[in-house]
């Protein structure tokens, strides 16, 4: 993954596509690359990084983010737990 400050570019080793990610998506991808996590784990992780006013939206944010990462082929589910392709 290339870190350009507040934007990131990640290479998908399966499709050979490159994707632009924001900081939250890059952080979640890093988290999932370390070990499988549930959607609830991801929401909790995001909650720690969000502003007070945004924390309530963390579960919805996590759901949308994981859907998008799965759609891009960067994350897959294993026994219902999202895992990053690395």
């Amino acid at each position, binding site marked *: 993954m290339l870190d350009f400050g507040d934007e990131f570019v990640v290479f998908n080793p399966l499709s050979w596509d*490159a994707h632009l990610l924001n900081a939250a998506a890059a952080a979640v991808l890093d988290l999932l690359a370390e070990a499988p996590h549930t959607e609830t784990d991801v929401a909790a992780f995001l909650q720690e990084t969000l502003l007070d006013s945004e924390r309530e939206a963390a579960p919805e944010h996590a759901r949308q983010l994981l859907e998008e990462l799965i759609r891009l082929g960067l994350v897959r589910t294993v026994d219902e737990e999202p895992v990053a392709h690395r």
Partner: protein
Amino acid sequence: MHIADVAAARLRDELASRRGIAIDCGAARVRMRSDLPALADLLRIVYRGYQLADADRACDVAVTLRRARGLRRWIRPQVELVVDAARELEPFPADTPLPLLEWGLNFALATRLTCYLLLHSGVVERHGRAVLLPAMPGAGKSTLAAALSLRGFRLLSDEFGVVRPGDARLLPLLRPVALKNESIDVIARLAPDAVIGPRFPKTYKGTVAHLAPATEHVRERHTPAEPALVAFPRFDPGCGVEIEPLSRARAFARLAVNAFNYEVLGPDGFDALGRIVSASACYQLRYGDLARAVQAIGQLLDEAAVGH
């Protein structure tokens, strides 16, 4: 001996021979063959600063321009373009041999030179630091690259950003600059001493003429340059010069789309492009005033030196 000094008859004979002639353009050696007598004189103008390379050695690509056979040749002569051994396109009118040869070489290089990451980009350098001018056809990259090459920058290519995987250095792939339509007079006015070949009207891109690269740039065609500045040009007659910073991530995405063979190289292409963008300041450049655009590129390159 420079090609300009080779006798036209000898060049015609060699072009018509089975092995043709070979020219070392830096990142690639190209073989040219043709039975068109007019081509030799044209090559003596636009490849004037090159020397004939050893045609017995292997070349990266081979392009043949030959007269089409058949009765039609007596009515409206046509030529066939053969890339390596394949005639991939229908015959063309015979009155634009040089644009066709150069176009055929572009096609051959873009599809065969897969050991490098190939960006669709003009490239110039100053003090070893390269400026990439990536753009699609018609955006004004050749005109800008030509102008920069006549104002203190060394030309590496007006068409190909050749990136060496591993160290992401830019390699020259130096050939004549194809100027189109109004750009021909613009460059002729900018540098009255510049050597520009004959004009070919009625090509599919309008009128085309070729600027011969400076002999000192030809001499340096094996000297790479470090990436330092990426400026996506767009000619806009309505403005002087407008410069807008571009994030590195956005620049990466645009370069990946712009590359001829990014998807062929996969992780090596990703790595090389990442190195290019990480080492460069990135901008969008809209220009209508060529002289100001040249000045702006020089300033951006100087600022990029301070920034790094």
